C-alpha cells in the first residue's frame, strides 16, 4: 500500500515535469518576447522582413538574432541607428541558450513567408 502511493507520487511528478518541458513555443514566444514588443509597438514582422532581405537564410538569421539578443548594440542589430531613437536598445537576454534558440525558431516560424506566397497564373494576354 505504501509502495503503491510512492509510485503514484513519482508518476505525477514525472508527468508534470514532461509537460513543463514541452512548453508551447508560440505561447512562450508571446510571453517572453511579443508581449513587450506589442506593448512598445515594436514592428516585429518588419524587423523579420529586414532580416530576410539581408540574409535570406534561416540559419544565418537565427545566428544574427541570437547574437543581437545576447549582446544588443546598434552594430549587432539589423535595424538602422535612427530606429533606436524611438525604440531604445533592450538589455542582454538572461535566457539560457536552448530556450533562446527555441524562441528564435518560434519567432522565425511565426513571421516567415513560407506558404504565404501564392503563385497566381495569368493568361498570356
Amino acid at each position, binding site marked *: 500500500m505504501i509502495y503503491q502511493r510512492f509510485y503514484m507520487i513519482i508518476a505525477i511528478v514525472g508527468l508534470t515535469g514532461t509537460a513543463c518541458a514541452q512548453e508551447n513555443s508560440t505561447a512562450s514566444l508571446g510571453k517572453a518576447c511579443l508581449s513587450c514588443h506589442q506593448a512598445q509597438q515594436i514592428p516585429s514582422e518588419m524587423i523579420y522582413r529586414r532580416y530576410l532581405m539581408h540574409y*535570406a537564410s534561416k540559419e544565418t538569421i537565427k545566428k544574427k538574432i541570437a547574437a543581437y539578443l545576447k549582446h544588443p548594440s546598434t552594430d549587432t542589430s539589423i535595424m538602422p541607428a535612427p530606429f533606436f531613437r524611438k525604440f531604445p536598445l533592450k538589455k542582454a537576454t538572461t535566457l539560457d541558450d536552448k530556450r533562446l534558440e527555441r524562441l528564435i525558431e518560434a519567432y522565425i516560424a511565426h513571421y516567415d*513567408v513560407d506558404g*504565404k506566397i501564392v503563385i497566381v*497564373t*495569368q493568361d*498570356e494576354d
Partner: protein
Amino acid sequence: MYHSEKRSLYRFLTIYLLSTFLLFAVGATVFYTLEKHHLIDNQRQQMKQEGEYIHHQLIALHKRFSTTLPLKLHAPYKIALLNMDKKPVASNLSLPTSFHLDTEYQIDNGTLFYTRKIEPYYLGVVYIVLATPVDEAALSKLRENILLFMFAAGIFFVILGYFLGRLFIAPMRDAIGMMNRFIQDTTHELNTPVSTILTNLELIQALNKCNGAKEEMQRIEIASKTISRIYDDLTYLKLNHAYHRDIRPLNISALLQERIAYFSAAISAKQLQLKTEIADDVVVPMDQDDALRLIDNLLSNAIKYNRTGGDLRIALSQEALRIVDSGEGMDEETLKRVHRRFVRANSSEGGFGIGLDIVHQVIHNYQFDITFRSKRHEGTEVIITWSSA
C-alpha cells in the same frame, strides 16, 4: 540519245544535283540553326521581361504584411523562388538535377530556363528561376518551310540540270553523230566493192580458173571475208537501236556448221586443228542476224588470236556453245574490260575492238550467260549458256 550520251548526262546530273543538294543542305542547316537561335533569343527576351515583372512584384510584396502574398505569373511560365540556401521560398516548378543557378539561360530536355539573381533579397528570395517549353510549334513550322523550299529548289535544279547537261554533252553528241555518219558512209561505200570481190572470187573458184594460184586466191578470200564481216559488224552496231528483231526458233546447229564452213579458209590458212562436237537440232529462239553476229565474232576471235597450228575446239549442246582456242590468252585485268567497245585484248592482230562489244550486246538482249576462262600463253575458253532458252 546514244547510250554513252545518256551515261554522261546521268553522271553530270548526279554530280550536279548531289553538289547542289549538299550546298543547299549546308545552307538550310545554317539557316535553321540561326533561325532557331533567333526564336530562342525571342523567348529569352520575353523571359527576362517576366523576370523583371516578378522582381517588381517581390519588391511590392515585401512591404505587405498580410497572410497571403499573391504573386502573378504569366502562362506558360513556371517559377521557383529560391533563398540563399537554394531552398524554395515558393515554387510550382521542379528543377532538373543538372540545373546550374549560376547560368543565366539553359535548355534542358526541351525546356528553357532563366535564372535571375536579385539583391537585396526581397522576401528572402535570392534566385528567381523561370521555365518555359521551347517553342516547338515555331521550330516545326520553320523545318516545314525549309523542307518545302528544298523540294521546290530541288525540282528547279533538276530541270535546270537537265538543260545544262544537254548543253554539256552537245559537243560529244555532235562528235558521235559525225563518227556514225562517217561509218555509215564508209560502210555504204565498202559494201559494193566487197560484194563484187567475193562474188567474182566464188565464180573463179567455181570455174576452176585459179590453177596455180590457189594460195593467193585463198588469201584474197580471207581478206575479203574479213572486210565483209567488219562491214556487217559496223552495220549491226549502227542499226542496233532502230533494228526490228525477228525472233523465232533458230537452228543453231545448222547455222554454226555453215559459219564454220565460211571460216574454213581462215582456219586452214592458220593450220588450226579443228575439233567439233555439234549436237543436232539445237534450237534457240533468236533473230538470225543476232545469232550470226554472235557466232561470227566468237569464231573470228578464236581464229584470229590463236597461234598458227594451234587447236580450235567448238562444242554445241542443248545447254551451251563452247569455243576454246589455244592462243595467247588474257590476264584477269584484260578479261574485265574486254567487252567494252574499241578495247582490244591484243593489238598485234587487226580489228576495231567491237567484236566482243557486239557479243555482249546480244548476250544482254537475250539474257544468255557468258563465261570467259583464260590463261596467258594457254588460250581462252568462251561458254555461252542459253539460260533463257
